[in-house]
């Protein structure tokens, strides 16, 4: 059976609460399918480790215990926490992974019964990263990696595909995209104003792109709640439209979309620092861009 049509293998699995699609260009279809399988497994592992909903995840363990004792975590979780802390510092607290308290208040995340505290006054700066991948919270706090883990999962999948010598590949986890190889990939973004319309973004090559937008559901009608929260003010951040960020890694692209939603055009410096560009779909269907390479 020839599993490799047009020298391209494309697969899709439900992961991370969305549809994850992996496309690989290959000479050997069997190898490509195997590499894709391992890449999906690496995404599933990130989901298992970092899900807020899953009571057995490392994030749940941290939220339950890390204020009371040191908790050892996997290299993956440690890495994401490290990057989240750096971004917290660089954005003066606008990007903050301790917004789970607000999201629980707004019923956008479940309130687990194991969370005995109700006062989560700690912030990302109160997360201590100790040697031997031990984590400790200096104040009571509650982590949600929803703003960064999906991008990290995409990066992990890309790493797996590169390690297995795939010529080129693209991973798309519900809009968090990263690719490598010689091709320039056309990228479409859903028009936030009109379902069924797609806006073209500059083609992607050896880079990542993530988009944050309010979906076409009840969240749009209620401005008091929103999955995006300003880390400093703790207020909801209704996305004006659709914000896409291109960066070197998908984790950074994913995280920076929240910073751009918070700061608008004032996010230019931060984007430049991380070698990232933001594309914002305006109401007239035209694209506004901030950031870019440091000159």
């Amino acid at each position, binding site marked *: *059976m020839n*599993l490799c049509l047009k020298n391209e293998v*494309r*697969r*899709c*699995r*439900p992961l991370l*609460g*969305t*549809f994850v699609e992996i496309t690989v260009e290959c000479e050997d279809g069997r190898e490509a399918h195997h590499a894709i*399988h391992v890449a999906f497994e690496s995404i599933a592992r990130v989901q298992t480790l970092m899900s807020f909903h899953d009571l057995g995840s490392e994030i749940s363990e941290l939220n339950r215990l890390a204020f009371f004792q040191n908790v050892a975590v996997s290299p993956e979780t440690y890495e994401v926490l490290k990057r989240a802390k750096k971004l917290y510092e*660089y954005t003066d607290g606008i990007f903050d992974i301790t917004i789970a308290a607000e999201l629980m208040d707004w019923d956008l995340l479940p309130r687990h019964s194991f969370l005995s505290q109700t006062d989560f006054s700690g912030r990302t700066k109160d997360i201590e990263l100790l040697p031997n991948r031990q984590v400790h919270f200096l104040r009571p706090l509650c982590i949600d990696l929803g703003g960064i883990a*999906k991008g990290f999962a995409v990066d992990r999948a890309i790493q797996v595909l590169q390690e297995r010598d795939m010529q080129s590949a*693209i991973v*798309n986890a*519900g*809009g*968090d*995209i990263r690719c490598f190889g010689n091709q320039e*990939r*056309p*990228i*479409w*973004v*859903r*028009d*936030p104003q009109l*379902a*069924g*319309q*797609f*806006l*073209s973004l*500059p083609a*992607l090559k050896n880079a990542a*792109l*993530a*988009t944050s*937008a309010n*979906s076409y559901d009840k969240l749009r009608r209620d401005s008091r709640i929103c999955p995006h929260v300003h880390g400093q003010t703790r207020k909801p951040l209704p996305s004006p439209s*659709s914000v*896409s960020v291109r960066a070197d890694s998908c984790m950074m692209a994913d995280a920076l979309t929240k910073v751009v939603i918070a700061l608008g*055009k004032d*996010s*230019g*410096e*931060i*984007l*430049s*620092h991380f070698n990232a*560009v933001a*594309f914002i779909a305006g109401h007239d*269907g*035209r*694209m506004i*861009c*901030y*950031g*870019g390479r*440091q000159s």
Partner: protein
Amino acid sequence: MRAFPFHLVSVPGIVLVVTTPGFATVYLTVEQAQQMIFPGQSLTAISLTLSEEEKSIIQKRYGAPVNDSMKIWRTEDGRYFIVDQVIGKHELITYAVGIHPDGSIAQIEIMDYREAYGDEIRQKRWRRQFGGKTMDSPLELNEDIKNISGATLSCRHLTEGVKRLLGLYELVLKK
């Protein structure tokens, strides 16, 4: 920290807008999905007729009946391979699930994904695709639209579909 000024980047050309009634992606055929989930196994198609009681239990427990159009295969060592469809507000998804004898999921693979917009599509022709019934005229779905970013699509309908199949396994197939 913010030592350098930001600058705007010019976007080349005019932003291209594509309007589409829908798009489709085909990932795997039935045979390919079988090889992905249970490689090297020989599968035997089985036909299943549910009693009214079984149908009503599943409907009650899972909020929806199992699809009449679903197809079931069995491996020699008692594992099941099921092809099913779920329909959302805008999407129609064909997927395959492998189930181990202990009722755990071996693997889930999306076989094809179709997304469509417009009231007319949603109400009539779109729904008629479901259940393998003949369409009056086929929907023209664009296969060139790929690498889509934007508001994350939930796979909730699919998760519910899989739960329903696991319920079917516990209630009927396991025996």
